[in-house]
């Protein structure tokens, strides 16, 4: 199925969770902020969030320094 991640169309498998997608992209869930279809998804909901065809995700991965 197709989803949109940070503005680009991506193919991902049916039944993929948000947690699974982050793992696939090698992103540490403790260092990301995720918006799904315009709504922020809290960290504790990553594992339970099942991605659906056409989902639009904005994933910001933070790096340290300030």
């Amino acid at each position: 199925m197709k989803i949109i991640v940070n503005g680009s169309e991506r193919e991902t498998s049916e039944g993929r969770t948000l947690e699974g997608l982050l793992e696939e992209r090698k992103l540490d869930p403790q260092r990301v902020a995720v918006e799904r279809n315009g709504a922020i998804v809290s960290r504790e909901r990553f594992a339970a969030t099942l991605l659906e065809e056409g989902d639009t995700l904005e994933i910001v991965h933070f790096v340290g320094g300030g």
Partner: protein
Amino acid sequence: MKIWLNEQQTEIADGATLFMVRARFKPKADVTILNGFPLREDHSLDEGDRVVLIRRGERPSPQELEALMASRHTPGVHERVKRAAVGIAGAGGLGSAVAVALARSGVGRLVIADFDVVEPSNLNRQQFFVDQIGVPKVEALRENLARINPYVQVSAFNGRLDSGNIAGVFAGCDVMVEAFDGADQKAMLVETCRIRLPQVPLVAASGLAGYAPSNTVVTRRAGTRFYLVGDGETAARPGEGLMAPRVGIAAHHQANAVLRLLLGEEPG
């Protein structure tokens, strides 16, 4: 007609010029500012113009000082930012510089939060002084901001921010700034603000270490009422330090994004 002279509404004769006003009200003034810009030549005046006359080196009265400090602002900015409150989470390289820029801009209230004390390794990029080593950062920053602009109200929270206290500490803020050091702390603050303070625009930063080219630091919209400053990838790590210029560039991107938001403009 009426003009604003040193922020006081003042009646002047129709057709009066800048220098005529100076001759009448402050003949010894050697700085004449019209609508935010200093002029050396005479200029015509219109109803509602803002004229500031300053005599170099003269200590203005407390009533006059605030107006004179804002006289190089773009007209109309001061009244709007004066009413605003901005929350700054973290008083390190980003937060201390954002706070200084916003205090100079005359933002009415700053809420600053940090749990740390000033230490020597902070001084390569943070807006503190050697004699403040050991002082809680929020106290040291409050002191420095008061010396820069005593008309800014500073609320300081000396403690650790977590998902349970963030909404309370920053209640009433019009814009939020994420200015932490650690990536996981940045993510925690962003998640918490966007869930608990969903109406408040948030300006975060990520990717500002080292001395890579300045123009790789950008401001972009990264979600609903969420703006991100930085190159997105240059992490502080062994071999990649944090340097005053680039941290300052990112901090000033953040401060300008805040100013734009307070003035109703899109930052990115």
